[in-house]
């Protein structure tokens, strides 16, 4: 009973803390927009022909079963990925705020604490699922020619969406308990894990005898394929289920009647088995969760300067400094700043961006540059150039939010010209560092006489750090940039989609966008400075 009470309060406090933030309102707005897009047919689900040369799409009739299944597949596709980033901050927040070290002194066990965080994560995601379930009801009432069948509409939510959200919520907790998966690396790893698992389920239609995929893809596709095949025996119908945004102009659409999945106890239990797995993941995480012990959290401490005593180090030498003559305190500016105040700030910003990088980070940077300059062009174009545009992610994601995250904003904003000097200096430092770290890309284009490629590179060198700066200034966090950039990078440079490839697109578009973002950032930072 007491454990249940602890879990309830752990989850309740965490849930309130998340949902009372301004950012959660934006999340709600985004979810409502997603509901609208599903309602108006911009985003949805269909079956293809199985042959890319035959552009036929198969839709179910707009009845309760189809709308329920379609909404759930959209939820699992979008919230399965973005939901992770939305909720993976509960433990980090306890570390950041210091509430964690108070919790560590209470009788609450590691497992209970993590289960509480899991329930809170799940509750937040479940609220979003509920909103989309309501949107699905509205869609049936407005658009369906058949009567509302609540069972057929809601069963996909209960049997498929909620277990998948429970798994996503557990993965967020799992990633937060592993120190090296807690930051940008974890964000990137999760994205690729999600993409690869999606590909695995979609392409191989892998399904264990007792366990179907967590997305519910196989639950729906088998039943849908059977109904579509019965309605159109001559086909051709592919078994592949597509979820996303469809441009259906000119594509023949065939509509078939689908009355829903035959929800047997076995099917439902198969999906809910993921909740058991999720709980197992949480309990597993409890084995290594350090319970906010700073000596086990892998926290890196700043190396003390020679004149500073470390804890436990003889302090006698500090006494010497105690009686030394006062140093000259004025003028305070460095030689560089005496030449030009902007240069002084720029140099300081460059140091902030590049400091604390370990030797292996520089070794990989150099290795990547060497590989770009020495590998066959096809390998460079397909893999190495995109890799070079991902590698500095952790440098970029610090931009714009460092002051808020490190609680130095009051000092920085109280310095001379925080908007007209510090912000431009931070931006220029980002551009220079990007140019330096991606220099091998430019050399590759020059050596191959690829001037459009070089122009695209120049556009990206300005655009990417500007996007990072703007994301940091607006969100006061590094995660926002990490998430949108990784998705964009995957859809653009890695997939070589010309419409989204900022590293090879029209530079004027990206330069113009960068200018706009920089102005907006300056305006927003001005508001922050004025408090």
């Amino acid at each position, binding site marked *: 009973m007491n454990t249940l009470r602890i879990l309830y309060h752990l989850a309740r406090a965490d849930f*309130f*803390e998340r949902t009372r933030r301004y950012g959660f309102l934006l999340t709600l707005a985004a979810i409502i927009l997603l509901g609208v897009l599903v309602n108006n047919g911009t985003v949805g689900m269909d079956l293809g022909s199985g042959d890319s040369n035959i552009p036929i799409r198969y839709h179910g009739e707009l009845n309760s079963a189809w709308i329920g299944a379609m909404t759930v597949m959209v939820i699992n596709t979008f919230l399965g990925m973005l939901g992770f980033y939305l909720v993976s901050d509960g433990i980090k927040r306890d570390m950041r705020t*210091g509430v964690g*070290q108070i919790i560590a002194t*209470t009788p609450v066990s590691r497992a209970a604490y993590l289960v509480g965080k899991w329930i809170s994560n799940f509750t937040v995601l479940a609220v979003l699922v509920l909103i989309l379930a309501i949107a699905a009801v509205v869609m049936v009432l407005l658009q369906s020619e058949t009567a509302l069948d609540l069972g057929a509409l809601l069963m996909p939510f209960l049997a498929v969406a909620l277990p998948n959200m429970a798994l996503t919520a557990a993965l967020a907790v799992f990633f937060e308990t592993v120190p090296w998966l807690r930051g940008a690396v974890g964000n990137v790893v999760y994205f690729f894990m999600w993409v690869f698992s999606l590909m695995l389920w979609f392409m191989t239609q892998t399904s264990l005898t007792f366990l179907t995929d967590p997305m519910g893809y196989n639950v729906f596709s088998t039943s849908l394929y059977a109904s579509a095949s019965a309605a159109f025996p001559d086909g051709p119908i592919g078994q592949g289920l597509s979820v996303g945004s469809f441009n259906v102009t000119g594509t023949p659409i065939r509509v078939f009647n689908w009355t829903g999945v035959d929800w047997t106890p076995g099917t439902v239990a198969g999906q809910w088995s993921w909740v058991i797995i999720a709980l197992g993941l949480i309990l597993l995480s409890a084995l290594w969760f350090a319970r906010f012990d700073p000596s086990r959290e892998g926290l890196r*401490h700043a190396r003390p300067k020679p004149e500073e005593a470390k804890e436990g180090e003889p302090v006698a030498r500090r006494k010497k400094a105690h009686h030394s003559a006062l140093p000259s305190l004025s003028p305070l500016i460095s030689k560089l700043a005496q030449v030009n105040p902007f240069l002084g700030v720029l140099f300081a910003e460059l140091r902030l961006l590049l400091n604390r990088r370990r030797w292996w980070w520089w070794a990989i940077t150099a290795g990547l540059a060497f590989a770009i300059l020495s590998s066959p062009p096809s390998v460079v174009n397909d893999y190495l150039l995109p890799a070079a545009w991902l590698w500095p992610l952790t440098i970029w994601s610090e931009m714009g939010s460092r002051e808020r995250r490190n609680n130095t904003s009051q000092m920085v904003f109280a310095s001379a010209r925080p908007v007209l000097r510090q912000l431009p200096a931070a931006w220029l430092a980002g551009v220079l560092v990007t140019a330096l770290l991606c220099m091998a890309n430019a050399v590759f284009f020059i050596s191959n006489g690829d001037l459009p490629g070089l122009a695209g590179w120049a556009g990206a060198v300005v655009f990417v750090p500007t996007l990072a700066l703007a994301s940091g200034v607006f969100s006061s966090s590094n995660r926002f940039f990490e998430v949108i950039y990784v998705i964009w990078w995957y859809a653009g440079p890695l997939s070589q989609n010309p419409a989204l490839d900022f590293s090879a697109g029209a530079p004027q578009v990206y330069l113009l966008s960068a200018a706009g973002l920089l102005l907006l950032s300056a305006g927003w930072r001005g508001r922050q400075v004025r408090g």
Partner: protein
Amino acid sequence: MDPNNSLVIETNNLSKAYKGVQALKDFNLKLTPGILGLLGPNGAGKSTLMRMLATITTPSGGSILWNGKDVVKDPEALRSVLGYLPQDFGVYPNLSAQEFLEYMAAIKGMSGKKAQQKISDLLDLVNLRQAARRPLGGYSGGMRQRVGIAQALLNDPQLLIVDEPTVGLDPEERVRFRNLLSDLSGERIVILSTHIVSDVESTATDIAIIHKGHLKVHARPEQLLKQMDDSVWEWTVNSEALPRLKEQFLVTGTLRRMDGVEVRVVSGIKPCSEAQPVMPNLEDVYLAAVAQNHKGGAG
């Protein structure tokens, strides 16, 4: 017999090393009900000691016994009766004080009715009744500190560990908290770490001074003051002589006067003919204990 009289926490050869830095070494301390004022320079190992006593950090060696039970092996033996206020702590800015305390009460294992009553009492005690429903994000630093104090007292702890508890409090609140600590100390063990010697002076029944990760002094304040008898001197010098004096002696205080600077010096011998012996205070004791290398220091 009062069951609290049996309360005792002791450390035996307690050690902690962080990546090659020895933060605490062979630390032995035994405490019974009362207030221990924990003093030491920055980096001396105070926070490390308190984190280990609060079961957050595991020692590299040695043991911590709570009423004879090893809390390194079984931290639960202590956690249910422990109150802890860390030096740097935050709150959930979107929760109210009432909600935050309800949350902390739950994870401390307190039941609903008992928790509600205790929260109500504590909100009065720390003078936050009027602001109890407001989000913590809008609280001043002093108000947040009072929320921290309240959460530390929620479970009526037998061991209360407070790290710089009066930082950010206004003078009235500071006096209020010091009185509260004094009232609490009769029936529990309180460990108070602070740089504000006057806080220790007015409340502590015992004083421990940590230096270089070792326990340098552990005694009652009156014993420490007695040891410093005839070791603290005051006289007036001209301001030009002050830097040289600081090189020679441990100067614990200076006061500008019309005829020069009145200096307060700790020295085992009379520093000069004009020097007059004065009553030592705890600041003299502390500074003397951590400044061994000074010429003429009474140490």
